[in-house]
């Protein structure tokens, strides 16, 4: 059958198993929407801002493990996607982003709503396409999905001019295979590298596993646990690695780093071997690189060889799919006990107890998150943006399952939490989804409450409302002489009324005693709910290792205020 370019896009999406996409139409992409309306198998979720489309696709991808798809028109539609694309690139999230472009004869003429989107997104995509011939549409989309989901996943953008979408009707031919001679994602690791890694592990006395996002992406949970248990190696999980090991597992120390748990950072500091599994030695974990794990040898497992020795010189690098690499490794690792090392860590934990919340009648944000974790039994999908609320969520929410923790990690984009939660709920309608925001981030994307209402996406939105840009305020407190310039929000709206204006329930919580009831009420109420937690302002995230410093400079919460 002969199809237009736009119809070929739809057929290609079906071939790739797509059933939902997020987007907002405009002039150049309208031919695609014209075709889309005739494909009811492709559910289109209309957003209010293109940033929500790409971040929703990101949330969908992270919870399902499938490729998220979004679309927008040329020019401003496409540029509004850029933040979300950059976030997906930083956090290795598989996306296919489809944008309309001005017709081919208009390209380069500064036509209405023309921007060079492939140029703009070059450094923030894994790859991108400008499809200049209708005969290349199907092949480009097939390649885009292949590149997005294999190897180290990432976003791929496909820009299609309007006249190609309208195009001359062409026979739809779905290519059998992709032809990408320059793209060969690694599979199994080299035996020699595995051998070297095993040797170091078998010799180590104080090893620590650092589990990163790679464990989640490769679904290497079982293999991680096997390795840890066989050689009794304690595990720290990076921000994006949270959920890769059960929170109550005896070997699980939690998150290290800038706002990690103190004893996890201290354990890393004393290690004689650090085994990084799909973690890239990000500056939020390492602090000053020259002082990070000073006495440790390092093994780095990664699927992307450019990560080896990029931030940290390592002793052994293992290139491969993490799940396969660990399956190769575990049989070569000897059973160990590491009794003394685990006792040392127990002492560290006793000296620096985690999850300690100050006893006070005030409504502390930490308390809200701890109670949210309790009430949902650690089984909800939790989505955050960036800042204090994100760090408290990472510290206090006890994720029982992988792929239930979504956060803007590498890019650190405020506003991610609202749309990504929408995408997460679309991908996992069986799960309770909580979007956790600060009052700053919430206002960046709250316009997409309308999307939740319109498309009946049952997300619970918690706002930890302290009236400031909390993390920036904290940096001003600690490092900028308490010059709280431009971080205090005096014009915040009434978020309960905002909810009500969208026709959904809004709950205000001003008292500690109301927290549990409000969480339960939100979850018992069908449909989206906004809960405005008026938390204590001026609360700081502890511990904190200041940027560019080491664990020796770690600031812990002042002791006199602690529970005895």
């Amino acid at each position, binding site marked *: 059958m002969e199809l237009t370019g736009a119809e070929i896009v739809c057929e290609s999406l079906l071939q790739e198993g797509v059933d939902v996409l997020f987007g907002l139409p405009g002039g150049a992409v309208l031919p695609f929407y014209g075709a889309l309306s005739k494909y009811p198998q492709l559910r289109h979720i209309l957003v209010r801002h293109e940033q929500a489309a790409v971040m929703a696709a990101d949330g969908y991808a992270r919870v399902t493990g499938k490729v998220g798809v979004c679309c927008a028109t040329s020019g401003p539609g496409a540029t509004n996607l850029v933040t979300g694309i950059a976030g997906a690139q930083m956090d290795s999230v598989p996306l296919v982003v489809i944008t309309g472009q001005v017709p081919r004869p208009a390209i380069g003429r500064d036509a209405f709503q023309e921007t060079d989107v492939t140029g703009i997104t070059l*450094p923030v995509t894994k790859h991108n396409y400008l499809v200049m011939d209708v005969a290349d549409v199907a092949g480009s989309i097939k390649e885009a999905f292949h590149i997005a989901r294999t190897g180290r996943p990432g976003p791929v953008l496909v820009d299609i001019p309007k006249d190609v979408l309208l195009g001359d009707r062409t026979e739809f031919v779905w290519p059998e295979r992709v032809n990408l001679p320059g793209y060969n994602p690694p599979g199994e690791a080299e035996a020699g590298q595995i051998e070297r890694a095993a040797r170091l592990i078998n010799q180590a006395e104080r090893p620590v596993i650092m589990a990163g996002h790679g464990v989640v992406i490769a679904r290497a949970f079982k293999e991680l646990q096997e390795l840890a248990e066989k050689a009794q190696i304690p595990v720290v999980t990076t921000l994006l690695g949270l959920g890769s090991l059960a929170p109550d597992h005896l070997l699980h120390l939690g998150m290290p780093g800038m706002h990690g748990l103190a004893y996890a950072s201290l354990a890393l500091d004393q290690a004689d071997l650090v085994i990084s599994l799909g973690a890239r030695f990000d500056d939020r974990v390492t602090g000053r*690189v020259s002082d990070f794990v000073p006495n440790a040898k390092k093994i780095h497992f990664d699927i992307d*060889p*450019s990560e080896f*020795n990029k931030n940290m010189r390592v002793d052994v690098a293992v290139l491969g799919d993490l799940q396969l690499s660990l399956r190769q490794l575990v049989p070569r690792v000897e059973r160990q006990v590491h009794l003394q090392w685990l006792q040392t860590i127990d002492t560290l934990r006793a000296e620096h107890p985690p999850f300690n919340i100050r006893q006070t009648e005030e409504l502390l944000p930490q308390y809200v998150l701890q109670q949210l974790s309790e009430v949902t039994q650690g089984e909800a999908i939790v989505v955050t943006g960036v800042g204090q609320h994100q760090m408290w969520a990472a510290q206090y929410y006890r994720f029982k399952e992988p792929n239930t923790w979504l956060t803007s990690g590498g890019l650190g984009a405020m506003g991610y939490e609202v749309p990504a939660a929408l995408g997460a709920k679309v991908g996992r309608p069986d799960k309770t989804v909580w979007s956790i925001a600060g009052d700053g981030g919430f206002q960046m994307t709250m316009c997409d409450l309308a999307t939740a209402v319109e498309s009946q996406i049952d997300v619970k939105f918690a706002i930890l409302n302290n009236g400031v840009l909390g993390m920036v305020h904290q940096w001003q407190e600690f490092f900028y002489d308490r010059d709280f310039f431009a971080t205090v929000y005096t014009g915040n709206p009434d978020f309960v009324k905002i909810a009500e204006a969208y026709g959904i329930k809004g709950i205000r919580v001003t008292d500690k005693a109301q927290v549990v009831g409000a969480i339960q009420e939100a979850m018992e109420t069908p449909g989206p709910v906004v809960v405005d937690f008026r938390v204590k302002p001026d609360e700081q995230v502890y511990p904190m290792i*200041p940027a*560019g410093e080491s664990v020796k400079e770690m600031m812990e919460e002042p002791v006199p205020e602690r529970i005895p």
Partner: protein
Amino acid sequence: MAGNGRHHTIAALVQDKPGVLTRVASLFRRRGFNIASLAVGKSEQAGLSRMTFVVVGDQYTVDQATKQLDKLIDVVRVSDITNEDLVARELVLIKVKSTPETRGEIIEMVHLFRANIVDVGTQTLVVEITGEEDKINALINLLEPFGIAETMRTGRVAMVRGQADGRVSDSIGIDFYGNGRSGEEPTAPGTYEGV
């Protein structure tokens, strides 16, 4: 990270697609790699081009540059060939000012370098020279006193000499693991102030 260190020669085989040069240039700019020259042209295989880069930096920078290049989908193969036995050449056109009095001297010098005069004007000569950078720089130095109006350099093109195993330049490979395959211990990544 850029600026310090020696010149490294990198060979790459790339797909002949629109935008491939932009991708490469954008990568060098974004990662802060210092590129001294870049030459590109069609290869012996249809649809594929060869590039020769000269990158200035320490071993860490060059290892990163090759691995980042290799990540580009349109880059089929890439190799650091600095330590290989190379044939390396550059073509340069030099427009040198001349008068009836100096013309003979210039021509003599050009011939001494086995270079050619490819254009004679009333006030200038255009010299074409091919060779390694040292030879070219030597001629430019000698011509400088006459006044150089314009030079145009292609940048280095390089190829490994014929190998017993028949390998071509870009298939030499990359040191993915930092094991020091290239014979040089990779330098450690530099530290930076807190972000």
